């Protein structure tokens, strides 16, 4: 099946985050009353500005922690960070993907936190 460019999911990169457009948000995701979708090591945050809803799932590191995993942009919104430029995000549902890195000495992959 041919995937036309205008039908392909949108992809945004914001620092160490990647936002991938998805068709729908899983039902097991819980609504979170926050506009922060990621925290940095230096206290910097990736914040959504505009009409949106953030959803969270259990963290893979700690099951008791629910971290933001999805968000719904009800209109074109902006994503801001202290160190990065503001990114305009079109309407839709998105999954938040964190950057990863390889540890050749331990043979594992780990999340990058900037």
């Amino acid at each position: 099946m041919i995937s036309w460019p205008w039908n392909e999911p949108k992809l945004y990169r914001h620092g160490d985050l990647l936002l991938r457009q998805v068709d729908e948000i899983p039902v097991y995701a819980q609504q979170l009353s926050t506009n922060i979708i990621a925290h940095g090591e230096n206290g910097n945050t990736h914040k959504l500005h505009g009409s949106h809803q953030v959803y969270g799932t259990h963290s893979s590191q700690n099951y008791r922690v629910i971290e933001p995993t999805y968000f719904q942009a009800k209109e074109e919104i902006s994503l801001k960070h202290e160190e990065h430029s503001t990114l305009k995000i079109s309407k839709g549902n998105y999954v938040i993907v964190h950057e990863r890195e390889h540890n050749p000495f331990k043979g594992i992959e780990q999340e990058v936190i900037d």
Partner: protein
Amino acid sequence: MISGASLNSAEARSDSEPCSYLHPQKYHRDPDTGLCHKVNLLNKSSTSTPVVSYVANNPTNTFQQINCGEGTILKGNSCVIDFRHEVAAQGQMGGSSDTFLPITNLFDNMPDFPKIDPVQIGFFAAIFIASIFIGRQFSRKKRIARRNRRFIKSRWSITSDQRNSNVQDEPGILRVTPEEYRRMQAFERSFNTVGKSDPEYFLHVTSGAKLIDASRRGNELYSIDTIIRGRSLRLVKYRDPSTGQAYICFVPSHTNKADHGMAWKFHLTPREYSRTKGNEA
């Protein structure tokens, strides 16, 4: 005490005797006067002449009589020391010096050594060589080498994805030598300090990384092969789209393109990563 008269009578020699038994060629007896004169040794022909003349003038002499002196025999025209005579004299302990024993007689009374069959010698030699060969084959060094070969062979046949990581047994376990472990520790320290603060300096000065690939988007892929034997560590250098600051990050060792490494970082395919261009901040 011996008187001088007795000495003179003891040393008196007849005309048929040579002037000197020890050095018969050094002295020559004058046939007219009967006195002995020293012969110039540089002239060989003159030295041999007296002996020849002595022999020629005494045709009735036997072997003993034509002997140049005690302990010497005549060979050709010159007198040489006869070792057979000395050996025979020692064997008889004071017997007549006229008795000669052939040299071969000295070994007649030697005890017989046991005769060894050559086939038997070959058999034992073969056993000896075989034992050395078997011992070397099963030596500790060979056993370790064989075990390592089997280990490396099995590692290579597990997955094609881990071809370069033949020292990694399973995820999370890395088998290295003590020297490699020390290098890894130093490298990790350097990466966490210099690499994070000044990636360019770390790549080009500290680590000795080699550039493998550079993409149009400014990403670069480097390889470091000097830390762990048989493993290539891959580092991708990229810049933040907003700030332009450079970062370095390890990617799997099978990565061959810089953009592929960046795509791996964001859980994307290379084609998907190419679509992020223009949507970065």
